[in-house]
């Protein structure tokens, strides 16, 4: 089993990612869920993480993290995720409580204590991860990989930058320059997993509580993506990370160098992907170009069905 910490800002697609990770189909040992300011304010993201954990009966620590980026002011995306950060499905107020302490200390502590190496799975801005690496650089040795959603060769929040990296580009720079192996799922691949009305219908036919929750998520998310980006459904960006941990063979990857632009007037927060190897810089990232879409949705369906099995 692979030890993972899910560092996230749920978030419709973060929730889907957690659902994949927590399913019996995956072989992941979730050490905890840490939250970060991103899609909405960190308190709301934490509340959503607790709600999803409770729904999944996932008894792992949920720890709140950074409420703002390292250098810049906060920037949030309520127009995509709604005021609560996870608008759409109605979930009861959680009885589970957030674990005391700060996500950064939790990450450091868990990585240090783990006998096996830990995989970090950030699906929001990289603030917590960067802070942990700055505060306790020695943890690098016990992190086997950072599997993240962010960036790409084009943008969504600006023409050049994807939201997660844009929100805290300085943190991203720390992470990409850390020397830890990175598997990166940017817009190039995440825009290939759009939950179109056909997909939502398939999910809706699965008769269990979790699948029905996912259906509600996808309906809200799909409408937001239609309204704001002109898409025929919501791309479940973050789910690529946990799907990759479960089925890496679905993805076409290239080992290359990615650097983070923190100065550009028009390209601030862009991940510069050296696909032609013109810089001669050492490859630091396994970059996902594409995914077997049919198989992705088949596996996704099987994951959701598994929640109905006793």
């Amino acid at each position, binding site marked *: 089993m692979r030890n993972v910490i899910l560092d996230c800002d749920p978030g419709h697609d973060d929730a889907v990612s957690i659902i994949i990770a927590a399913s019996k189909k995956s072989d992941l040992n979730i050490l905890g869920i840490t939250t970060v300011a991103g899609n909405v304010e960190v308190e709301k993201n934490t509340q959503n993480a607790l709600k999803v954990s409770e729904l999944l009966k996932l008894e792992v620590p949920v720890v709140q993290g950074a409420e703002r980026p390292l250098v810049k002011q906060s920037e949030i995306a309520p127009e995509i995720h709604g005021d609560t950060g996870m608008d759409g499905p109605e979930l009861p107020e959680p009885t589970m409580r957030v674990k005391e302490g700060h996500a950064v200390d939790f990450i450091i502590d868990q990585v240090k204590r783990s006998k096996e190496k830990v995989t970090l799975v950030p699906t929001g801005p990289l603030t917590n991860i960067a802070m942990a690496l700055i505060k306790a650089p020695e943890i690098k040795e016990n992190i086997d990989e950072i599997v993240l959603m962010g960036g790409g060769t084009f943008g969504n929040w600006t023409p*050049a930058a994807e939201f997660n990296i844009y929100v805290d580009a300085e943190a991203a720079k720390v992470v990409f320059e850390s020397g830890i192996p990175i598997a990166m799922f940017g817009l190039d691949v995440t825009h290939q997993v759009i939950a179109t009305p056909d997909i939502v219908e398939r999910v809706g036919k699965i008769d269990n509580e979790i699948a029905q929750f996912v259906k509600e998520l996808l309906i809200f998310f799909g409408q937001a993506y239609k309204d704001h980006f002109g*898409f025929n459904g919501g791309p479940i960006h973050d789910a690529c990370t946990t799907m990759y941990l479960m089925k890496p063979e679905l993805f076409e990857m290239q080992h290359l160098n990615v650097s983070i*632009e923190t100065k550009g007037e*028009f390209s601030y927060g862009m991940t*510069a992907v*050296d696909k032609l190897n*013109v*810089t001669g810089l050492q490859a630091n990232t396994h970059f996902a170009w594409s995914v077997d879409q049919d198989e992705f949705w088949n596996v996704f369906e099987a994951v959701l069905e598994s929640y109905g099995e006793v």
Partner: protein
Amino acid sequence: MTKTNLWIDCDPGIDDAIAIAACAASQDVLNVHGISTVAGNQTIERVTNNALLLTDFLNLDVPVVSGQAGPLTREKVDAGHVHGTTGLGDTVLPKTSKTVEPGNPIVFMRDTIMNLPEGEKMTLVPVGPLTNIALLLKVFPEVNNKIEKIVIMGGGTYGNRTPTAEFNIWGDPEAGKMVFDSNLPIVMCGLDVTHKSGLNREQVKELYDSDKKIQHAFGDMLNFYFDSPAYINSDLVHIHDVVAIIYITNPEIFTGQQVSVDVDCTDGINRGMTVCDLRHTAPEEGRNVTLLTDLELDKFQKILLDKLENL
């Protein structure tokens, strides 16, 4: 049919040389008014000399003016290794007695454009750094109304000089910004399309084996590319600059989309990047750039080879 009025701005360069050859072979549809040179692939002295040698070699009787020796605000960096000892690979063209037009090159360009008959406009084809074009638009804004469009070889959604910047735009980002911000209609023949174009080894060999001196010379230049490390495992040699000319003579074989473009001039890693807004929701306003994304390769090859054959 009226011919397209053309001004070529270049830094020859092997691919520039073939672009000039394609112009020389297209005079049934193109009226080439002149060539300005700009430092880019090589020093201004060398690219200007090459422009003179090429026009003479091709019997293309047009004025050549020697333009800017370096970018607007920075020191110049050249790409000597890509274009060989003469800048045309190692190909040596016959000597020429042709000389550049005297006087200020930007004034010469302005006069040529303004002297077009009423109702006619100029298509500018810059295939090097945009220094001359930026100066022309800045110093003589009256030319705006006499410019049909600017067909640029440069930029794209990714880079070859850096991960995000293409060589020509990287060579003078500030000039690039001035041109892209001009709001004139621009066609960007960037790497997205030029990397899908070119000739294959067999086609280049046929040129090289030709007993006609012009075809042989261009085959020789393209062999220089094929022998370089970048192409050692490739069956397609890209001839970036000629794509701009073929676009003008045969736009029907290309596909593209209207986008807005900002050129990043900051000192970060994306300096010289043409930032294209590809989002569905990008504002309609400001989409003055046709970003070429694809072409029909077999038709492109046939058109180019036919042109070269007719020289």
